[in-house]
């Protein structure tokens, strides 16, 4: 074997051995994927970015609602529920709360079916008994009550009676959830 080939092979062997040792050391020390929080969402930049956007949209809706432009308020809030969101419980609750506000605004505009779809979308996100879920059920009652009054004003008495019954059912559901949340809180010592 020529001497330069032997020298090159030797250098390569030394590099390979040292690299293998270093890899072993790194594996022992651990890496990001091995962290204790792997698979669990933490409070991070994307979550804050989403919350900031939602906050901006709600304040924008406040101002346009003050001016009486409910359509513009709806448009501002739709961006919160249609855009991407992180898979974090508080982000999901914010979206559910936004659905509730959208339903309130849409039903105020007379758009009852879209309003009820918003309520159902919000309820699908909040299975656990919380004030967010209770609020959605209460808004469902509000939407149905408005529909009942609209139908009654048009003389559609049967449909109005059905809407009124559904509204009462929704309010009852809201009260049940709110009672459960309050009972849970009081049984925990009020905290």
């Amino acid at each position, binding site marked *: 074997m020529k001497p*330069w080939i032997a020298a*090159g092979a030797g250098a390569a062997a030394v590099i390979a051995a040292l690299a293998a040792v270093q890899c072993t050391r790194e594996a022992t020390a651990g890496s990001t994927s091995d*962290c204790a929080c792997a698979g669990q969402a933490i409070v991070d930049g994307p979550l804050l970015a989403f919350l900031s956007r939602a906050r901006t949209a709600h304040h924008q809706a406040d101002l346009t609602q003050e001016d009486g432009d409910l359509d513009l308020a709806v448009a501002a809030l739709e961006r919160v529920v249609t*855009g991407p969101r*992180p898979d974090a419980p508080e982000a999901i*609750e914010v979206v559910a*709360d936004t659905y509730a506000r959208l339903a309130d605004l849409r039903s105020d505009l007379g758009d009852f079916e879209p309003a009820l779809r918003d309520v159902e979308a919000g309820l699908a996100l909040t299975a656990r008994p919380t004030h967010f879920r209770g609020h959605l059920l209460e808004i469902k009652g509000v939407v149905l009550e408005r529909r009942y009054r609209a139908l009654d004003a048009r003389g559609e008495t049967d449909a109005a009676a059905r809407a009124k019954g559904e509204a009462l059912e929704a309010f009852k559901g809201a009260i049940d959830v709110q009672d459960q949340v*309050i009972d849970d809180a009081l049984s925990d010592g009020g905290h």
Partner: protein
Amino acid sequence: MKGERKLRLVPPPPSGEALPDPGVDEPFTDDEIEAAAALRDAIDHGADPLAMALQAAYAPGKLGDADLDAIVNRALGQEGAGTGAESAAAEQLRAELAGEAPLGEDAALLQSLRVAVRPTALDAARNEILIAAALRAPLRKSPVTMGPRAAPSPGLLRRPVRRIAPLTMAALTSVAALAASVALFFGRPTPAPRGDATAELVRARSADDLFDATTPFPRHGEESARIDRIASARAADLRRNRFAAWGVK
């Protein structure tokens, strides 16, 4: 010391005689005027990066809704979202690479990389010229390398060089590789164990605990107040997480 200038008081000029105006500069040259005009045009057209940066810092413009959405969407994982400025820059780069516009610095770099990865075919005539030049060069250099005392044939003169060069290169390569390996082994910072730090990170969780559990939300209004409270609380959590990640306690 002879020849050294010394300060001395001088009498004021007689009344009525005009003093030279220290504020008057020499007249501008044509080049300076031309450069000033070019800079003014660049600033007017937003083509001067420094002026743009200063202007943005002094009087920042409103961020467009589309740009804001793009930034937030990208933060949430949609890598394809781009701002207006980025789209314009991408279009400019495309035009430069397609030969529709003069090559800029970035496009020139990409062009070089493209040629390096997929070299284009060399013109046959140019190839011959390069080969001929390469073959001629060692023959010209050989006598100079070995000195002018002897004048044997060029082939004989190059033999010692052929023998020494591989050995020298092998030795130098080995030393460099060994040094690099040792630096890699000892110098590379090993990540500190993160178990403790990650255990302290604040997890995302329900916002229930931010509100009085015994008081349901009002039927209308206060949505903005609720999101304000959630965002503020999570901003504090994010600060704690960042400090924890940096190892600050």
